[in-house]
């Protein structure tokens, strides 16, 4: 085990206290819609300037990993992803909570987050330098194909209709083009409104698309928000551990996907969790259960998004290229501390790096008891709160959360507007998930495509640029395999049970 001699440095009472406080604070921030892991880290960076570099890094790493996990609370209990990384957690988390299994869903999310977080941190410990070199091989074309790979998941998010999912995805892609173009600087679809020049903020859109339709339907009936069972909010740890053991393949695959996607600069937890969800669904013997409260869905998304934490630190520490948006903030904090990131970091400042990595592993392990306790009380609270108080409280969170992103009242209006559109579209059978996926992947896909096209044009070999690079060929193979997988499985297993059209308001 590299740097094992620095384990003791990570286990000082002060560092353990920082890890606990960081995980708790991060989980609370992550649970509030609109407050992302990036914001949680950014807000607390100034508090770390007076600490020694290793302790500062442990605090920031703990906040980051706690915030990514915290997003699952709102996703499961309110059908609103607390952070973009928890988008896919809503698909099965909320249906589980709705049928009275919210406590089990929260425990599964906690176990999966710890597993994924550990896999990512161990990858950071053992494989950082070689994996960082792989990330450097990704050019615009590879990012384009990665985005296309993500977009193929749209087909599995249509809740009963692949065509509706694809149409919704196209709408999301068009939304991502509002504002100044990534390449070329065209001003597109702003309606001459200056407030749209910056485009549609993904987090504001996320809050609106998921949360407003839930609120509109919550006030429509006197029914309780979540089903209350006889045994109110236990941990159900034994049951959850059994599910995790039976789905160990899914956990391992999703954690590896999360680590790899985390290594790719700019991709992040939202893409990792969506890719993992799609793969878990494709590999499942019962894909028709996904979207209706399937535990495997939660395990896939929560393990992968927490694995991006360790994965994202690999290019950050080895190359000085932030793997995920919170890593960019942490990179800034490192520079303030006088730490020069780069390949020599693991040799010249090994004490700081290995103390931090062991601290990150410690914080991830501490997430288990902390997460279980917070989850239990969160579930009890949400069930106990009368609807008359819950609705305005969640509405207030959506308003203040979307305002706080850029301190911009126009983004609050965007959020409400998109929420109303999402509710109207849900009445026509179009769900928000494909729209969100298109919105997230649109900028990556377009920038990769246009840059790749320009590079190929300059080389006078556009097709070779897109279809001739080794990593691209690998990703294209995955895309083809992913698209053909259901057909192949049908051939080998016989026809699957047709999925019922799930209501978007379930």
């Amino acid at each position, binding site marked *: 085990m590299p740097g094992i001699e620095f384990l003791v440095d990570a286990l000082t009472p002060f560092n353990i206290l920082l890890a606990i406080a960081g995980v708790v604070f991060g989980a609370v921030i992550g649970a509030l819609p609109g407050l992302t892991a990036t914001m949680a880290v950014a807000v607390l960076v100034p508090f770390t300037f007076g600490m020694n570099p290793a302790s500062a890094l442990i605090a920031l790493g703990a906040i980051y990993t706690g915030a990514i996990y915290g997003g699952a609370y709102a996703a499961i209990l309110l059908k609103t992803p607390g952070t973009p990384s928890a988008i896919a957690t809503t698909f099965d988390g909320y249906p589980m909570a709705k049928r009275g299994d919210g406590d089990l869903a929260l425990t599964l999310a906690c176990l999966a987050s710890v597993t994924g977080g550990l896999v990512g941190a161990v990858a950071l410990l053992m494989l950082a330098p070689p994996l960082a070199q792989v990330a450097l091989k990704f050019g615009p074309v590879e990012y384009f194909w990665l985005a296309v790979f993500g977009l193929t998941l749209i087909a599995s998010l249509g809740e009963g209709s692949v065509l509706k999912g694809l149409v919704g995805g196209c709408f999301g892609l068009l939304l991502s083009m509002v504002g100044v173009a990534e390449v070329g600087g*065209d001003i597109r679809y702003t309606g001459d409104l200056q407030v749209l020049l910056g485009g549609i903020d993904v987090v504001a859109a996320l809050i609106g698309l998921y949360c407003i339709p839930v609120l509109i339907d919550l006030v429509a009936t006197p029914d309780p928000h979540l089903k209350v069972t006889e045994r109110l909010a236990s941990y159900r740890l034994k049951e959850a551990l059994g599910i995790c053991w039976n789905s160990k393949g899914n956990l391992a695959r999703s954690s590896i996907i999360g680590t790899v996607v985390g290594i790719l600069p700019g991709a992040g937890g939202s893409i990792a969790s969506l890719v993992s969800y799609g793969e878990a669904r494709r590999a499942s013997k019962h894909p028709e259960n996904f979207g209706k409260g399937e535990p495997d869905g939660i395990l896939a998304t929560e393990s992968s998004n927490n694995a991006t934490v360790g994965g994202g630190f690999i290019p950050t520490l080895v190359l000085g290229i932030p793997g995920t948006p919170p890593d960019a903030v942490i990179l800034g904090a490192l520079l303030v501390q006088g730490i020069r990131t780069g390949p020599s970091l693991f040799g010249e400042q090994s004490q700081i790096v290995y103390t931090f990595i062991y601290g990150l592993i410690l914080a991830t392990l501490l997430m288990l008891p902390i997460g279980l306790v917070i989850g239990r009380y969160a579930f009890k609270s949400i069930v106990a709160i009368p609807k008359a108080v819950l609705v305005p409280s969640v509405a207030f969170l959506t308003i203040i959360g979307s305002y706080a992103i850029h301190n911009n009242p126009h983004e609050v209006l965007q959020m409400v507007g998109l929420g109303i559109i999402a509710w109207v579209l849900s009445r026509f059978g179009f769900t928000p998930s494909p729209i969100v996926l298109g919105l997230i992947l649109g900028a990556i896909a377009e920038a990769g495509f*246009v840059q790749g096209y320009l590079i190929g044009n300059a080389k006078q070999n556009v097709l070779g640029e897109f279809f001739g690079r080794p990593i691209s060929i690998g990703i294209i193979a995955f895309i083809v395999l992913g698209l053909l997988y259901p057909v192949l499985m049908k051939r080998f297993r016989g026809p699957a049970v047709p999925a019922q059209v799930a209501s978007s308001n379930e």
Partner: protein
Amino acid sequence: MARDVPGIIGSLIFIAVGLLALYYSREFTPLGSVFPRTIASAMVLLSVVYIAVAWLRPKAPAPHQPGSVWRRAALVAVMVAWALLLDRLGFLTTSVICFAALLVISNYDRWTPAMAVAYVAAGAAVLGSLYSIFRFVLKVPLPPGVLI
């Protein structure tokens, strides 16, 4: 078995949006228009295919979702007002008014003095704590107004 009429109406809306996107893409440079045109064309084509499929292959209609229309409309109106007024009236002032309005809209039980006191106290606690976290801990510059 029935045709998915809501799905067909939704697809028609998307066709209109796609055609508008294609129309406005005329103003863009070739580099800036290639992606919007591709996606808008795909959206129109997929919507047409969906309409054809929905017309030719009737299936069981989606379950009707009951609920109060006026409460839904009132919630939407309050949310829009909240977004529009927070900059003019101040964040806390607007939030107190809209929070109270949503409390009334969401409540299905008979009002009693005890319940009113409990709900007002709960609302004050939620608003006060969240507002304080954002304003004083996270240093978010929320628009000032009549109250603060």
